[in-house]
């Protein structure tokens, strides 16, 4: 009976009652988010602020407590440090090369998985395996395959006749960059392929049927229909991957044997922090990386927004 009464009030839409309900729901919503927000403030917000604060001090690892404020000295030092700039350029080259290759291969694999043929699920399973293997493990597996004397890659390349002498994949700076890119492409193309595949499956089928009826060449359909329709999905995937590639650590740490010529920004920052114990300088490097990723994000958001505005105008 009581329930019926409340239902009547509800259906009559008594404004006082329903706004009370809204208030109750909003209040409990905040209560429900509060624990998550608190945890995020403690594990993300606070450490980030501390890192930024450290970057203006001369803190060292052995005596974190005794530090002095030194203004922008750490940043000025980094601006003149060749090793730092080397790590910046390594990171940027790595990000551009690996994301480009991953997008191309990911698109190819997505189209393959979108086609209807027997054994498609096998390909999908096989492709997921590199994604699931821990980065450290895949780095070690490839490091062994890249081994200059006993590595299987040199053996295969020499048998096929592409090279005549074994290459020092992990010692030579330019080769080790190639090695890092190869391993990253191997590991993260599946992610790209799955995202693009999901985008492909959401495209309206009518366009493709119409193209088929008009007997338009598949390649033309791909360039004129599939690719433009897929663009938003690809852009999102590229943003995710670029931001991820800029903070790369594991692959460089394992595959390049820690030489200063082949460090990523994250590796540089961690080396300053823990191997050289200069928390101030390392924090400054981390802060710069954070700023770089933040600016890249804003840049992507701006591009995305202005593009979608243009589309709305047209």
């Amino acid at each position, binding site marked *: 009976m009581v329930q019926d009464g409340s239902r009547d009030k509800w259906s009559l839409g008594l404004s006082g009652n329903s706004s009370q309900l809204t208030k109750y729901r909003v209040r409990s919503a905040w209560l429900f*988010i509060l624990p998550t927000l608190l945890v995020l403030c403690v594990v993300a917000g606070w450490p980030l602020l501390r890192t930024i604060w450290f970057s203006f001090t001369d803190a060292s690892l052995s005596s974190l407590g005794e530090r002095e404020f030194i203004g922008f000295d750490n940043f000025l030092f980094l601006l003149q440090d060749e090793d730092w700039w080397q790590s910046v350029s390594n990171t940027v080259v790595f990000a551009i090369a690996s994301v480009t290759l991953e997008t191309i291969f990911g698109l190819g694999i997505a189209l393959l998985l979108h086609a209807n043929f027997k054994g498609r699920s096998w*390909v999908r399973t096989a492709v997921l395996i590199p994604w699931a293997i821990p980065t450290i493990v895949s780095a070690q597996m490839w490091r062994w395959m890249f081994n200059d004397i*006993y590595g299987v890659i040199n053996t295969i390349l020499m048998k096929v006749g592409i090279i005549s002498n074994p290459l020092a994949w992990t010692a030579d700076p330019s080769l080790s960059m190639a090695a890092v890119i190869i391993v990253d492409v191997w590991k993260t193309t599946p992610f790209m392929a799955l995202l693009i595949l999901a985008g492909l499956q959401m495209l309206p089928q009518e366009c493709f049927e119409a193209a088929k009826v008009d007997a338009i060449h598949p390649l033309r359909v791909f360039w004129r229909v599939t690719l433009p329709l897929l663009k938003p999905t690809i852009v999102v995937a590229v943003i995710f991957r670029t931001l991820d590639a800029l903070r790369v650590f594991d692959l460089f740490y394992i595959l390049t044997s820690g030489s200063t010529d082949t460090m990523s920004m994250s590796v540089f920052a961690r080396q300053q922090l823990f191997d050289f114990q200069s928390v101030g300088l390392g924090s400054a490097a981390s802060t710069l990386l954070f700023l770089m990723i933040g600016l890249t994000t804003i840049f992507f958001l701006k591009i995305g927004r202005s593009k979608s505005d243009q589309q709305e105008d047209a």
Partner: protein
Amino acid sequence: MQTKKQKFILYGGSFFVIVIALFPFYWAIVSSLKSGSDLFKTDFIPPSFAWQNYVDIFKEQPFGRNILNSLAVAFGTVTICLTLAISAAYALGRVSFKGRSLLLLTILSVSMFPQVAVLSGMFELIRTLNLYNNLFGLMFSYMVLTLPFTVWILTTFMKQLPKEIEEAAILDGASTWTICFKIFLPLLWPALVTTGLLAFIAAWNEFLFALTFTVESQARTVPVAIALMTGASEYELPWGKIMAASVVVTLPLIFLVLVFQRRIVSGLTAGAVKG
């Protein structure tokens, strides 16, 4: 109707993709089963099945302990993460209030943080809390990696639940707590499995924090143990054992992928495409 040429491209391409995707893992298995000087010959099939490497990693190294550490950290992270994320996702997905999209954006942007940007602050925090060289310290720090995307993905799943159920529950006077945990939670099981799996894999694979916040080999997780495995001398890496360890930690993941591949794919795409 597929022409011969199309078929050739499809099957040729598939074959190529499968070989590239699986060869490194196959090579790790082959290498792990070679002993002594066989390791340095590039035979594609091991001459004899030598299990010694597998025995050694558990005898000479605390690898069993490392696996237990990784399991504990990963399960702990997933449990804490899901508990927090369910209620947050309910609020963000089902209730409309001022500042909701800003909150979602902030949470998403945390998942874009480079780990190294919180490294020195986190190091200080973990030492202050006395969690250094401790599994709880790792679970604590992994929240920054797993919580944002868990909330994000669960929110998209929450939004998809039918409105009618919630309205009926409100009419019956159910509290928000009841709606979230008694009515929606049972419906969300598939989504929880998906997000839990992704968080588990993220925690199981994490390297930078685990490397920095542990010091003894007993406290290490699997990735750190594999990265820092050394042999008799510093320059002579025990490749056979490293490969054996790699195979041991990868097999369970491959098993998970085989069993849950649909769920993993739906989780990955729910997080990105709809966002």
